[in-house]
């Protein structure tokens, strides 16, 4: 990761950081173009693109019909021919109506052409449950994406990363899906607006610790930090790793951390089975066999669609108690 520049940090909400990165993109690169549903004149249903249409006009940002397949396909064709499109898929759940363009088209472009084509595009979306949201607006889709070779996947958990990682996604020539976290949109963080654009990849240790490593990403990160606080009060010193990029997956940071703590818990909001947590476990277990004092445990949504009623959601979404219990379980081995 690049050094923070001299300029002071600005406190922004996550969604404002996204907005700042998009503004930066339109300002600094002529090849960028933003499109999606309600992104231009209305400024985006979450306000991610607010004000951009007014500044940059309809050649740089425009609204599309409710046609996600056409949007992603158009993004690919534009990216293959000199453009650098940034498309918004309003909810991650809507990716499924356009999954072919992601899996069979965008992801294949570079590899199947032996590197002759590139597809420098960004698909921005946001995911996760929110109180009362229905099953069709609550999916956490990162495992579907991470299982698709050819796609890069970013999952920022802070305002600072929302800014930095989106800028990186825009700059790199690989297709990147940036999966933002709707529940974190209002959260504030320090953003280095004038910093250098970071390299792609790299997990981050948000809190150092000696007793156990807690790995997570996206909406689960604040939960893990809160769990670490609670554990600290009990005298358990947890290290918290934010994966940030799910492709490339920074296995070495995870395994170095677990090599030190010898215990690990992976936490994600996506459902358990065939979630990306299993991959983290499988890799870390393979590289740290013999070092581990306990199996690496997972905390994830159970294998059900997300129910809308808050009382049920509370029983699905990973929370501090479940993370703390999992840590206790690994310590009890």
């Amino acid at each position, binding site marked *: 990761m690049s050094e923070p520049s001299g300029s002071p940090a600005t406190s922004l909400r996550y969604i404002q950081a996204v907005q700042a990165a998009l503004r930066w993109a339109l300002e600094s690169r002529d090849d960028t173009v933003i499109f999606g*549903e*309600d992104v231009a*004149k209305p400024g985006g249903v979450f306000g991610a693109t607010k004000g951009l249409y007014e500044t940059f006009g309809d050649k740089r940002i425009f609204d599309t019909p*409710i046609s996600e397949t056409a949007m992603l396909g158009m993004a690919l064709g534009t990216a293959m021919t000199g453009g650098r499109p940034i498309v918004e898929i309003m909810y991650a759940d809507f990716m499924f109506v356009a999954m072919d363009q992601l899996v069979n088209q965008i992801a294949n472009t570079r590899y199947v052409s032996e590197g002759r084509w590139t597809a420098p595009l960004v698909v921005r979306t946001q995911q996760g449950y929110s*109180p*009362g949201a*229905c099953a069709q607006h609550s999916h956490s889709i990162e495992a579907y994406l991470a299982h698709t070779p050819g796609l890069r996947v970013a999952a920022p958990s802070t305002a600072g990363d929302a800014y930095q990682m989106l800028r990186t996604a825009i700059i790199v020539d690989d297709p990147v899906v940036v999966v933002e976290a709707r529940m974190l949109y209002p959260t504030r963080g320090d953003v280095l607006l004038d910093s250098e654009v970071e390299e792609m990849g790299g997990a981050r240790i948000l809190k150092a610790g000696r007793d156990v490593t807690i790995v997570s990403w996206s909406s689960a990160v604040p939960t893990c930090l809160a769990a670490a606080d609670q554990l600290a009060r009990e005298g358990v010193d947890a290290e918290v790793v934010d994966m940030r990029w799910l492709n490339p997956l920074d296995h070495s940071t995870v395994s170095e951390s677990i090599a030190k703590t010898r215990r690990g818990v992976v936490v994600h909001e996506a459902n358990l089975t065939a979630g990306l947590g299993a991959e983290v476990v499988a890799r870390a277990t393979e590289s740290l066999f013999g070092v581990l004092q306990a199996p690496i445990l997972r905390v994830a949504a*159970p294998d*059900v669609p997300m129910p809308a*009623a808050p009382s049920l959601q509370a029983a699905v979404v990973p929370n501090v108690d479940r993370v703390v219990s999992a840590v206790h379980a690994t310590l009890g081995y």
Partner: protein
Amino acid sequence: MDTFDCYRQMRRIRRLEETLVDLKNAGEILGSVHPCNGQEAVPVGAATALRSDDYITATYRGHGWAVVAGIALVDIFAEVLGRASNLNGGRGASPYFSSPGVNFIGENSIVGAGLPIACGAALSAMRDGRAQVSLVSIGDGATNQGAVHEALNLAAVMTLPLVVVVENNVYSEMSPIAEMTRVVQLAERGAAYGIPATIVDGNDAAEVAAAVDAAVARARGGGGPTMVEAMTQRYVGHHSGDVQHYRPTGEVERARADEPLARLRAAADDDTLVKYSAVDIEVDAEIDNALTVARTIPEPDPGTVLEHIYV
């Protein structure tokens, strides 16, 4: 349909929506609510053409359709409030509930996705020989979604007993449909599938009823699908929190003046107005009762959260 029945049913839906938005604003509902204020004449008119064993498929803006399908207000309130309702036990909420008991295939929060499913209900209807029809409501913006295209073609080629109601409220969230397609009326797309399509004043329940009645007759008689484009407007936001900054000055006011209940009142003589007011009072009481009962229903038991995923 008797005017007073029509008024009552529309008023019921209106008050349901208003109450839900109040509850949402008060923080008693946490998920999103997409009210259909202004569009009530569409479901109410259409329902007069349906039998109780016909199938209805709607969108997240589906409370009106749920009411005309015969779902009790208390069940809707309870579901939307996130209680252990008789509908979906709180699992669906405002934009995604359903009810097999009244053949309400359900709402859908994926734009356009209901139409293929409605084709399936139509296929069952065709197979079971009881001349049922499958009616599906979609929005104007949904017509640009691939699923809608595929389903319309499939329905036409299979001669499915399907009635497609396009509620053209001229916006998709915050974007005008006029900027999202080159056709002036979405009914023009019927020809692309060989599907007869009519355009009706969607704020006139009788006009909707007549068009849907013809469509239903055609479907029951084995004539296949029909598209009915109902021109209407929501005078409220896309969802409860939408302040409609995107609407040109005066548009919402005009929509309010032209909404179906306002129209009926404007056309009414003094006697009728008195009767309408009596209906209003009855409906308010009904709504209050339903909400009161709904509020007594407990939240779903978290212990059941893993149940019913598989048979």
